[in-house]
């Protein structure tokens, strides 16, 4: 660790000591409290120059190296600040896709608004396009209306994180049914206030509403709000999905390690310090968490050195998701009957809130979302290890 990084760590820690919100979970028992906490903390981070360290240097707060970003995220995790869930899609998915594919006009129009707190969501998944994303069916037809060039979009989108609170949407649509499934996709930037858009929150099994479904009924999107060319949507979407593989898992792993005290507290509170089986399982878990953190660290070091391999990110995600399941599962087990009595959740409270049944159910967020564990296993076995790929076609005839 160089001196410059140590100075940065010192600066961030001092800034957080003064600025980090205290007892914020208490205010996040309602959606309004959650939104106020998230918006307030993002504005503070943006003003302090720590909201978008991964952006290019020409933007305020941007231009941080990966090593510097790591320091910032470690300190944010250490101070147990609210994770930026509301603006996550905006500063990562939307911004990085705009940086890579946006025209200068599009960048000048949208990027500053993100820094001002505009919220983006992602409109990729559909009822019949989950892990198999290329099966998107939402239709967009290009027409001229009243002298304006627009796409008219109709369809349904699912699992839009924070979609019910968002202002804008990264939208993947089908403009052609010719040729390969991927070749008929186009990428649009949708204003969610446009006529014909309905956003409805999805009620999750643990009581949260982190996702929405979007219904699009003949919604007009100006052609000027297309990212990339018509038919290039698959390639643009890959940039969006790649942005998810940033330092998120490093931050989440650090937060999981930082939350181990919750299980320690639980063991003490339930009087099971002398239960060797429980203590062993806790010990085994802490080592698994340490291993996941070490893997995330090594992943970052390899990326900095330009030695990242295809599939490395999947190793980190799978290691994290399974370890998070083990963490919440152990909490639920030790929590016993007490954990079976319903407690209202804390919105945006993180993956480890000590509301064990809720935390356990919420851990599926990481084994299913962002490429399910099964998709990660395919990537690891086929692309990292080099086992042969699944045949592309499947018919009833062949199965007989």
């Amino acid at each position: 660790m160089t001196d410059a990084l140590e100075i940065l760590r010192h600066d961030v820690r001092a800034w957080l000591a003064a600025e980090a919100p205290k007892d914020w979970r208490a205010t996040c028992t309602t959606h309004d409290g959650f939104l106020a906490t998230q918006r307030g903390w993002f504005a503070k981070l943006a003003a302090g120059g720590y909201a978008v360290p991964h952006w290019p240097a020409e933007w305020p707060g941007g231009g941080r190296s990966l090593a510097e970003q790591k320091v910032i995220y470690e300190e944010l995790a250490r101070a147990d600040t609210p994770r930026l869930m509301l603006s996550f899609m905006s500063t990562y998915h939307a911004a990085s896709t705009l940086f890579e594919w946006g025209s200068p006009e599009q960048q000048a129009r949208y990027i500053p608004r993100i820094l001002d707190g505009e919220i983006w969501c992602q409109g990729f998944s559909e009822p019949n396009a989950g892990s198999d994303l290329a099966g998107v069916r939402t239709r967009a037809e290009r027409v001229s209306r009243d002298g304006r060039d627009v796409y008219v979009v109709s369809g349904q989108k699912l699992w839009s994180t924070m979609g019910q609170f968002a202002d804008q949407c990264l939208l993947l649509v089908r403009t052609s049914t010719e040729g390969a499934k991927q070749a008929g996709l186009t990428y649009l930037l949708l204003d969610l206030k446009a006529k014909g858009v309905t956003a409805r929150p999805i009620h999750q099994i643990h009581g949260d509403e982190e996702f929405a479904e979007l219904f699009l009924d003949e919604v007009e999107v100006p052609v000027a709000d297309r990212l990339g060319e018509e038919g290039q949507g698959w390639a643009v979407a890959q940039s969006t999905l790649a942005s998810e593989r940033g330092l998120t898992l490093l931050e989440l792993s650090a937060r999981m390690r930082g939350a181990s005290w919750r299980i320690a507290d639980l063991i003490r509170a339930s009087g099971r310090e002398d239960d060797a089986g429980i203590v062993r399982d806790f010990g085994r878990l802490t080592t698994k968490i340490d291993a996941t953190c070490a893997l995330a660290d090594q992943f970052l070091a390899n990326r900095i050195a330009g030695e990242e391999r295809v599939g490395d990110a999947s190793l980190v995600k799978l290691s994290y998701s399974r370890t998070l399941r083990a963490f919440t599962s152990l909490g639920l087990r030790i929590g016993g009957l007490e954990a079976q009595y319903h407690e209202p959740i804390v919105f945006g409270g993180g993956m480890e809130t000590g509301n064990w049944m809720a935390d356990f159910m919420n851990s599926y967020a990481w084994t299913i979302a962002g490429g399910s564990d099964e998709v990660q296993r395919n990537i690891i076995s086929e692309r990292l290890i080099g086992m042969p790929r699944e045949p592309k076609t499947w018919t009833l005839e062949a199965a007989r």
Partner: protein
Amino acid sequence: MSMTRSELQDAARQAFGEGGLAPDAGRSWASIAEMGWLMMTVPEAQGGLDLGRDAAGVIHTELGRALVPGPMIAQMLVISALSAADDFPERDDLLTRAMAGEVMTASLARGEKLDCVPDADGASHVLVVSPSRVALVPLDGATINARDTWDKTRRLFDVAPVGEGFTLARGDAAIALSDRMDAQLLFAISGDSLGGAAAILELTIDYLKLRHQFGRPLALFQALKHRVADMKTWLSAAEALFWARAVDPAATLVEIGALKAHACDVYRAIAEDAIQLHGGIGLTMEYHCHLFLKRATLNAVLGGDGDHWDERAGRMALEVAV
């Protein structure tokens, strides 16, 4: 360290990677001494190479990969103990002889009993550790009983030496030295285990690609691929932890013990499933799968088992998180 990790790894693979698994014990020991690995962690002032724990990590990993037999781990314990000992007239001579390959051995089990001592029948001395004293005792006149282990890559003996031998440390220094020996032993077994796990995983993947059933390679079946992907993930995370703790001077004995327990869990799980994935051939003595399974299960109990170290790690985490 003057040699990078990958240079050292290349040298080790050249020495052991091509000679097949579980190579000849005598020739392996001669190569180990010739390559200077026995003097690897000894300070230059004492005639060593002064390489760090990560260098030792590379060597133990590579020996584990190739299932190299011999008393390397025990010998390294003796060498470290001699190197750290208070000076006494015979010390430099003993250290020089040990670094040159004269076998001096030590128990690989936890506790004071001198069982589980590798290659004691050909050794000149044995390390004797008690809470009040660490000593190196000549094996002249000692009672040495061979134990027939399932793992034929290790030859273990119960030893009862005669006499007091040379004192290496007493009192608090003995406790500190004994903890250091424990950490070194656990770290070495971790490396051996992760090297073995990586090797049998690669061999299993090769086999799945090669073997055809139902008109296609086994490697095409998703049910098998996903098992392999899980193994690769757990192994990668355990390896990352191993190298992180290798270069962390603040790593505690319990942290190294927890690493050892985890590395052995991963090795055992991979070696166990490797036989299942190989099918019938995995159950034959001619094929290599069983060698890994046997070494994995032995490693799991050396230096204290998973139950012991997981519990201590849990206790430590409870204390930290007050």
